[in-house]
């Protein structure tokens, strides 16, 4: 069964249609790249999959392992294995990162009927993952994303992804604001999570990221729908020709 099926999705924000019948099927183990110019609706798609309020779905459906995702609250989706690494992770002053990680992990496990992590197991796991992502321990003591640089915020998203072990990872512009070294570390973190059971949807504006996270499929989005789908070579093609051709076509 497909992991994620987006069928003819139509989405409005404040009476303006942003997605005009978008379809996408993602199977376990696959890595899909979604590329497209600014404003084409990439973040909107990721938000609707994660369940962000404020979007009106006026047509189509989203199935996750055959279940209607749109009927689920955002926390239910998270517990079922949907994870969105945000383009703009928010800062949450006063909520210590460590406390947040533990609360979130245990909330998900509880919702799945699993036992809570013991403190030593949890700490061990966080330590391992943060080390591999080059995240210093003192960062975890601060408020969630508070005072983090752009790159640190992105690494914190990947840390969560590694910790929660979701089956669908959506990465929204993970590369924005990262220099080449930071990009490599983050991409290594993502690649380490690739597995036959887990799928990734990598949203990016630039082809550069796809040198590090090599996709199985590339979709080009323009003006609210997928206008072209191909293999990884499509990304390279875009690098040369740009998005202009699709913007006219859409």
């Amino acid at each position, binding site marked *: 069964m497909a992991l994620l099926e987006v069928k003819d999705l139509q989405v409005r924000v404040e009476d303006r249609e942003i997605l005009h019948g978008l379809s996408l099927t993602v199977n376990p183990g696959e890595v899909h790249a979604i590329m497209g110019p600014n404003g084409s609706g990439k973040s909107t798609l990721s938000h609707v999959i*994660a*369940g*962000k*309020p*404020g979007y009106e779905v006026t047509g189509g459906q989203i199935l996750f392992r055959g279940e209607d995702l749109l009927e689920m*609250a*955002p*926390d239910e*989706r*998270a*517990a079922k294995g949907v994870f*969105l690494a*945000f383009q703009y*992770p*928010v800062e*949450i*002053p*006063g*909520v210590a990162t460590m406390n*947040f990680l533990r*609360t*979130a*992990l245990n*909330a*998900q496990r509880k*919702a799945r009927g699993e036992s809570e992590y013991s403190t030593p197991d949890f700490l061990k796991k966080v330590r391992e993952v943060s080390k591999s992502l080059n995240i210093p321990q003192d960062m975890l003591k601060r*408020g969630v994303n508070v005072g983090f640089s752009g790159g640190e915020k992105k690494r914190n998203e990947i840390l*969560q992804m590694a910790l*929660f072990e979701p089956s669908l990872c959506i990465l929204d512009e993970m590369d924005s604001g990262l220099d080449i070294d930071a990009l490599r570390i983050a991409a290594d973190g993502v690649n380490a999570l690739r597995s036959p059971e887990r799928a990734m949807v990598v949203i990016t504006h630039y082809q550069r990221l796809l040198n590090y996270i090599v996709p199985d499929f590339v979709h080009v989005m323009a003006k609210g729908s997928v206008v072209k789908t191909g293999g990884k070579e499509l990304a390279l093609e875009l690098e040369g020709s740009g998005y202009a051709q699709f913007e006219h076509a859409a």
Partner: protein
Amino acid sequence: MNLVLSKTDSGRAVSNVFVKANGRLPGAGSVADIRARAFEAYKRAGLPHRRIEEWKYTDLRVLMHHVLPLAPQPDAAALARARAAVAQAAVEKRAVEGAAKLVLVDGVFSPNLSDIAELGQSVNVRTLREVLDDPANEGRGDLLLTTTTDAVISLNAAMVTDGVVITVTDGTELCRPIQIVHVATTSSASSFTRSHLRLGKGVQAAVVESFVAVEGARNHQANDAVIVSVGEAANLDHLHVMVGGADATNISSGFFVLEASAKLKLFSMNCGGAVSRYQAFITLAGEGSELSANGINLVRDKQHGDTTLIVDHVVPHCTSRANFRAAVDDRGHSVFQGRIIVRPDAQKTDGRMMTRALLLSDEAEADNKPELDICADDVTCGHGAASGALDEALLFYLRARGLSEKEAQALLIQAFLGEAIEEIADRTLREFAILQAERWLGARG
């Protein structure tokens, strides 16, 4: 028309209350004269209402209607219930752990429920009644005087039945907090208490005032005043906690005078009562004194919680910081009024006042009004106020990570309140405040 009627009504009711109570009130001679004058002053003004600037948002004629009769002198049964309530509060962690308790039951000091002996030699505790009744103290009517003309304080001076008068000798470092516990055991009655706290030079102390009602005591009105002087280079952590019954009315006034280099950390915590007003008047009277005033106001149902803070900079080189936060649920109403006064001599004053309210329901209401009143030119002062709902973007981030709506809200409310609570220096007091806030959050429907 209505207003006149209600004033006359409440005036008459109170006149009866005063006449009836008179035989029970301590102090003769000049003390009695001061009382009578205080009562006259109250009668002229009546309960404060919305056209009195200081009470604009807390109209006691609407919220309180009238002053209830004085609670009777507690009998053995009342004291037994109070003892049980104090013990229960300790079990339920609604009392500060390890504090030396001074207990007032229905406005009367109860030596048997108190831990005076544990305070040691350097702390002198007498009851206000004792001091006012002492023939040698004929002149101690000053204990009933304050600098304000506030009608509720006049009423307090007129009606006060008891309180504690605490003196801590120079250089003492108290190793445990002192907790003044007010217990209400009767329904539809009022109590009036006044306490004095004098900290000598270099004293280090932590003081808590708290209010509880025994099971079944309904509709109690408390009017309390605490007058504190913080000696030169002394350090006081002062916590005012209102966790009392859901139908209680609590009017508390605190007067603090800081001598040179004294430090006051004041925290007010309101998470109970139908109507509560905590008004603190702080005078930075000695150079280099520092105030850090913080508090949280947690209101729900139809509760009304008011914090009023007057910070008076009289001399140069003093610092004041205020950070107050309210969480308002259901149809609750929170009020914060504050003023930083900088007198002409108080150059180099550094004063700041922030207040924020979190509105947790569509019907929740918050009034925030910090003000500056500056008469010196070389000062740094600022104030700010904000109210609003929980940030949707933050809520969604947490929910996308698996937290339920309630869990996500609780985490954000806790973080919001935590920024005020973490200002409490004393660890025991801080943990106590955190626990009360968690409890309030846990009870959110």
